[in-house]
């Protein structure tokens, strides 16, 4: 339990800190931190319950994508402000470092293994963002069709 609280606090500060480095507007810092925290804690819990890291990253990236869409719509601010900070904790920085370290120490086999994993994880992040974007576009399109139909019906009357 104490573990999870530590993860919650650190991931919030880490995401909000990144929002500061990217110079996000002051009023969005808390939201950026929260989205990053929720994404990371989903990843953490899934990973703790023995789920594969790629699947956990995909799920977390999907959550970050959806939350960012909602926040972007609610605050009328470009989505990039929210999903950049939210994605950051999921970026496989540690693994990439480890892969590089193996290369430097002439262990190319292990290095390649880790590098492949890094690519898979980055792919999972990208896929999560893509899925949330596609979902949004489908919903938008259906809403538009509904609106158009209603307008047509009014005109017919």
């Amino acid at each position, binding site marked *: 339990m104490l573990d999870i609280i*530590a*993860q919650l*606090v*650190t*991931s919030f*500060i*880490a995401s*909000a*800190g*990144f*929002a*500061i*480095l*990217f*110079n*996000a*507007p002051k009023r*969005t810092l808390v939201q950026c931190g929260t989205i990053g925290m929720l994404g*990371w804690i989903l990843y953490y819990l899934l990973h703790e319950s023995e789920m594969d890291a790629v699947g956990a990253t995909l799920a977390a990236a999907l959550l970050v994508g959806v939350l960012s869409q909602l926040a972007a719509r609610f605050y*009328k*601010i*470009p989505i*990039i*402000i929210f*999903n*950049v900070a939210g*994605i*950051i*904790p999921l*970026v496989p*920085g*540690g693994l*990439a*470092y*480890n892969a*590089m*370290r193996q*290369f*430097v*120490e002439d262990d190319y086999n292990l290095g390649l293994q880790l590098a492949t994993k890094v690519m898979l994880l*980055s792919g999972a*992040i*990208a896929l999560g*963002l*893509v899925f949330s*974007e596609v979902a949004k576009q489908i919903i938008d399109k259906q809403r538009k069709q509904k609106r158009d139909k209603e307008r047509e019906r009014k005109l017919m009357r």
Partner: protein
Amino acid sequence: MENKLFIARVCTLAGKIMLKSGAETYRVEDTMNRIASAYGLRNAQSYVTPTGINFSTGFADPSNTIRVSERSTDLHKITEVNSISRKIDEGGLDAIEAFRLLKEIEKARLAFPEWIQIIAAALLSGCFAIMFNGTWPDFLPACAAGGIGYTVVLWIASMIDVRIIADFFGSFVIGVLAVLFIKTGLGVSMDIIIIGAVMPLVPGLLITNAVRDLMAGHLLSGMGKGAEAVLTAFAIGSGIAVVLSFI
């Protein structure tokens, strides 16, 4: 004709600010087209790459080219331009007023002061050390290494135009500090300290942007930004690698 040219200036200025601040190219094109069509130019065309903007007010009209060579990350400016383009879209802003506001944004320095950025970098480095299964004794060393590393990057970037050199020396300093912390017994795990401290330099925004551009069908921009991200990661990696190969 005069009017058309002025609208083109408003559009390209908005696009230039956004591109300089690190917006996705599809968003830049979208914003420029929206502004143009709000001012009655239905056939405006824009073509944006990470390094430049091409904009024409319509078929057979002269086209304007703007080159953007320096890019940084400034989400605040993107937000400001976005809200101006929303206002124009809703019809509440004439071109002259919009141009004045955009000029103000271009000149404004909205960035957080450097000391706040450095503190943020230090804190997030420590937090990442904990998130990546580190132990609490490594928190402060990671903070120190991350903060100092980021300071070095800011300092070198202010002198040299090539951002990659700054990233390289930043991560080199981080590596040296991590080794020192372990040698003096202040830290426990060198790997954890380095991973945490390097995070402020990781090209996270570039990666997300590259993916978003690719998704929007801007294959050229996506690949370009991807290449920039790989180059940055390579600079960080080689900075650390130089240190590691000496110990």
